[in-house]
């Protein structure tokens, strides 16, 4: 079995603005492995997005560590990196897909430029190659390549989310963090996007950590699932085991509360 890609140990976070001693994330601990899709599920306010942002380095946790094994096989303490080192990691080996695509895209440049930006950040300057790569990625995420020069402002929600995925995957990241990527979309658009993400994650052997409140998304996309409540991971394991044989009272409640888990 392969070595983990990411290790989260004893991670807790308390927002400075919190009125009481309540922790937004309490003592989270887990490993992520290459090639797996893992879901964090829970109700809003359970701390799942805070946990994701702590892993991404966007929030410095009050306690605990996040260790990442980089492409050169070195273990990095994510929160001990300089801001610049974190930025480089975020643009090369990591991807982050925002819930709201307009937070993850640049709306004032073309779709092609959105895809090419990370490549240019890595030193690619050849216009023809940038354009060819952007076109290939538009095909992979099933966007009409005739729209390459259009601004994402003219795109629908589903198209913007596809573009955001292409923009993140173009540099072949090893770890992609996704925050409710399908929650603003129509059900039919959601289904196609889920299939696309599943196929690309498998083909690229990338590790994806996806935050969702939708157990159906976890069921279809994730091999493993973590259940969060009040900042704590109350249960984790194979997705079908967590959903079909839930052990924790809260997971049983969550599973029994949905129409079609």
């Amino acid at each position: 079995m392969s070595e983990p890609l990411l290790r989260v140990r004893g991670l807790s976070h308390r927002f400075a603005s919190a009125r009481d001693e309540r922790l937004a994330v309490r003592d989270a601990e887990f490993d992520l492995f290459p090639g797996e899709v893992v879901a964090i599920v829970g109700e809003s306010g359970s701390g799942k997005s805070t946990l994701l942002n702590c892993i991404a380095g966007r929030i410095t946790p009050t306690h605990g560590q996040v260790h990442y094994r980089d492409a050169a096989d070195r273990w990095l303490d994510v929160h001990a990196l300089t801001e610049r080192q974190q930025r480089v990691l975020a643009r090369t080996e990591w991807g982050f897909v925002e819930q709201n695509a307009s937070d993850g895209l640049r709306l004032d440049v073309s779709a092609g430029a959105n895809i090419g930006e990370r490549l240019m950040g890595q030193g690619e300057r050849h216009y023809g190659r940038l354009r060819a790569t952007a076109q290939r990625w538009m095909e992979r995420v099933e966007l009409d390549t005739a729209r390459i020069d259009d601004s994402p402002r003219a795109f629908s929600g589903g198209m913007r989310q596809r573009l955001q995925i292409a923009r993140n995957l173009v540099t072949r990241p090893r770890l992609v963090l996704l925050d409710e990527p399908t929650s603003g979309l129509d059900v039919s658009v959601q289904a196609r996007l889920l299939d696309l993400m599943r196929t690309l994650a498998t083909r690229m052997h990338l590790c994806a950590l996806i935050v969702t409140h939708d157990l159906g998304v976890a069921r279809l996309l994730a091999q493993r699932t973590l259940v969060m409540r009040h900042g704590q991971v109350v249960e984790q394991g194979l997705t079908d085991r967590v959903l079909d044989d839930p052990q924790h009272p809260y997971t049983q409640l969550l599973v029994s509360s949905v129409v079609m888990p």
Partner: protein
Amino acid sequence: MNEHDGKANDGAPPRLSVRGLAKHFTLHLRGGARLQVLRDTAFDVRAGECVALAGASGRGKSTLMKCLFGSYGSDAGSLRFDSSDGPVDIANIPPQRLLQLRRRDIAYVSQFLRAVPRVPALDVVAQRLVDADPAPPSDDLDDDAHARRMAAARDVARGLFARLNLPPALWDLPPATFSGGEQQRVNIARGFVQPARLLLLDEPTASLDAANRRVVIELVHEAKAQGAAVVGIFHDEEVRDAVADRRVELG
């Protein structure tokens, strides 16, 4: 244990060896009621052999199948399985290892089809074949190579759909709108497309007509001949008598 070839052989260790298996459910939403379903369950299955689980409804036949597939955890006991990379205990392995076994070695045909919406029936089946044998990391984003692998897998899937008399007009459609019997046949094709070392069949013929039941009987015979160990729940006596070598009584 270093004998891993697929032949039924009296000297070889069993392909699957269940010992002391226990499983209960605690229903927290019903005041913590405790439901003991399996207690000290034990049996063996050899390569090339089919065992039918028997026992009245509620005796834990489906629960046992899910413990073997790993979608239910086991409380106690061991589920020793002779996998393609050596012996493992399914009841006590990390999730990543279990997923690996499911991709290649363990197939499970349940009564209900679960698939990503909007994926055509052919791809539901073809994907299992491609996942079982992933492309080397070096050319994982070679779109042409990927398309060729999918095309080859779709050909195998078409062959199975034809044998199962699934109307060709349905092959390129997502199965969500199919009838129960049609979905069942997609499920069967997905279960049989990748030769498994352990094949779990939970009422595989429940919604099939006589002609398609016979096709499933043939498929099980072929899987056994290729060395699969088969564990099944068959309410249909004709199917059970045709495929099962022996019965294991539960409860």
